[in-house]
């Protein structure tokens, strides 16, 4: 396993980390169908530590109020907490300023925001948008819509045949002066492969293209520094870069996003307000701030190191199960992989696997994981995904693998 770059704890203490950290997550302490819950569906949603839950609870019990507009004490407290969350998020991803952070409803909305403002205003017929076959639907559909509207053309980077990572040779071949945007997933939510962000950004910028990175699976799991990545926008629940925001026209009208409203026209506020129409998700922003605090206290390098250790163990154990085929690169191949593992078992439908695993208290995801084109590319209609997070342990991985073996014999016996 790769070691963390700053003062990595020993493997022993890393192993202890999960046991220690999981105590902060009250939801994990429950039984499902008579078995202790093993939650491995973190690619879909991860659990919230006690500090985040308390931050939300405290908000509603003590200072729930609309932000920005009020002059009374509660409103002042809510505004301060909301904007301090923006600061925390900025620091967490290494943004130059909290003004670079836009809170959106989710990553889908964030990509739509870029597509429908920058995309619609900038793209011309024949301009090319470079995506990959491994993109989440949220990073495909918005560009299909904008391509249809502007006449821009979509291109897709394929996977390498052997390691099932982004084919960087093909990427460089596809990149041309016609490319106006490169929009790629940083860590694939299905393959687990990690895109070489610096190489991508440098090459894209050299031909004058903008880069959007979908960092949904990287920001919570490894240290991500926007400045070092070099992307123009990163999306991860809600983060984008500021400079470009200035030049993007507004999208949704209403609420905080205006400067002056007349009956027939309006002037718009500066970012990030311009893109945050209506009353925002105040409690959630504050909770996100608390989550950043929590992860910062743990240390993202430690989280990353522990997850790599855990991911390697998962890969190794899973690979040893007869009939199992794991997608994406191995932990030692290329840039390596994230801790998650998507797989199939010969002759058994992934949904049947996850149903029986659930009976053993093991929560995994099955389906196309919002990557239908990638599944088509791999010649399958669905897969199972086990995605551990910082609060999972090697022991839980072993429980999962045992339950998987039982499930297989359930269907084949």
């Amino acid at each position, binding site marked *: 396993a790769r070691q963390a770059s700053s003062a990595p704890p020993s493997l022993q203490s890393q192993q202890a980390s999960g046991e220690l950290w999981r105590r902060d997550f009250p939801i994990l302490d429950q039984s499902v169908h008579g078995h202790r819950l093993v939650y491995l569906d973190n690619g879909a949603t991860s659990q919230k530590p006690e500090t985040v839950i308390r931050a939300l609870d405290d908000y509603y019990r003590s200072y729930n109020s609309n932000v*920005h*507009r*009020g*002059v*009374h*004490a509660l*409103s*002042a407290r809510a*505004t*301060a907490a909301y*904007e301090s969350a923006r600061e925390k998020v900025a620091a967490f991803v290494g943004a130059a300023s909290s003004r670079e952070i836009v809170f959106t409803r989710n990553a889908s909305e964030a990509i739509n925001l870029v597509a429908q403002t920058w995309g619609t*205003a*900038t793209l011309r017929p024949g301009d090319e948008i470079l995506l990959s076959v491994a993109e989440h639907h949220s990073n495909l559909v918005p560009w299909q819509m904008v391509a249809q509207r502007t006449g821009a053309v979509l291109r897709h980077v394929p996977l390498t045949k052997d390691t099932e990572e982004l084919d960087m040779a093909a990427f460089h071949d596809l990149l041309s002066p016609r490319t*106006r945007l490169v929009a790629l997933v940083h860590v694939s939510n299905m393959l687990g492969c990690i895109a070489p962000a610096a190489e991508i*950004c*440098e090459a894209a*910028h*050299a031909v*004058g*293209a*903008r880069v959007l990175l979908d960092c949904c699976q990287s920001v919570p799991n490894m240290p991500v520094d926007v400045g070092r990545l*070099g992307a123009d926008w990163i999306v991860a629940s809600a983060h984008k870069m500021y*400079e*470009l925001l*200035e*030049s*993007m*026209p*507004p999208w949704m009208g209403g609420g905080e996003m205006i*400067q*002056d409203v007349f009956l027939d026209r309006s*002037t*718009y*506020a*500066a970012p990030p307000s*311009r893109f945050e129409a209506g009353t925002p998700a105040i409690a959630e922003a504050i909770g996100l701030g608390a989550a950043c605090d929590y992860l910062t206290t743990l240390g993202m390098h430690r989280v990353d190191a522990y997850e790599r250790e855990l991911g390697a163990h998962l890969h190794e154990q899973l690979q040893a199960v007869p009939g199992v085929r794991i997608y994406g690169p191995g932990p030692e191949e290329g840039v390596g992989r994230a801790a998650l593992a998507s797989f199939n078992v010969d002759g058994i439908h992934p949904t049947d696997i996850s149903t029986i695993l659930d009976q053993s208290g093991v929560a995994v995801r099955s389906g196309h994981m919002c990557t239908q084109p990638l599944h088509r590319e791999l010649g399958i209609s669905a897969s199972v995904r086990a995605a551990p997070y910082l609060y999972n342990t090697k022991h839980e991985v072993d429980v999962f693998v045992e339950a998987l073996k039982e499930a297989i014999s359930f269907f084949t016996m």
Partner: protein
Amino acid sequence: MATPATRLGVEAVRANPMAPPKARYKQLLHFASRLDPLPAEFHTPEHKVEGCVSQVWVAAQLDRAANTLSWRADSDSQLTKGLAALLVVGLSGLSPQETVQISPDFITSLGFQQALTPSRNNGFLNMFRLMQRKALDLCLLQGGKAGASPGHGPGAATTGAAAGEEAAGPGRPRGGGEAAPQPGDAAAEPSASEQQHMGPVAASMRRKLQDAFQPLRLELVDESGKHAHHAGVRSMGKAGQKGETHFALSIVSPRFQGLSTLKRHRLVYASLAEELAGSVHALQMNTQTPEEAGVV
């Protein structure tokens, strides 16, 4: 030079941080009541502070002989007017050069922030920023041959300054209710040439231009590549391996209104003084008002 904090010492002491907020508000009312009136002619967009919960106007007058500014302000909110009064007392008597060098941090030293909500604090800061911007305009115009005086403001004679020049941004539309174009009215689409990746120097220049001019369009192209044969340049310390030495700038801003090309260029040079003293050794410029660029 007396710092604003010192100048405001008298007030700051009276604004005892231990006093309950309501007592502080009473003080603000007192300050407000002592503020010289700002005639209604100055209640125009050019003097208006944006981003306040109430309406606030500030205007400066330059005493050329003494090279000092005197400030006046008004607000329809008594408490805000009290805050404006603090700044008027604190900043009057300083030279434009001294004014622009003050860090906004001094506002905290006034000890009023605890009593203020975030929106009022923000308004307080915006007042200070507008005052600094007005001082900067004067500062930059002074730097060169100021040429023909752009005319006296309506209230220039009333304050008795020796050679009053109303300093609210030269050449901006005066008086009337005509709204000045706001930043954000039109959003510039980044051009293809500007889409290249920016180095740290370019990024810093962009940020400063953005802040100083609130441009409706801003294109900054690093043309250092074209000049790569300047081997000497490439190895020049600060420019470093990035070699950010040659730039082409195209900028559209309402702040250029009524200014000659020379003055516009001087404004830009002033805002980029640091970079021009450092790695950047060539800046080609195209400066336009929104009307000239046809974007309003």
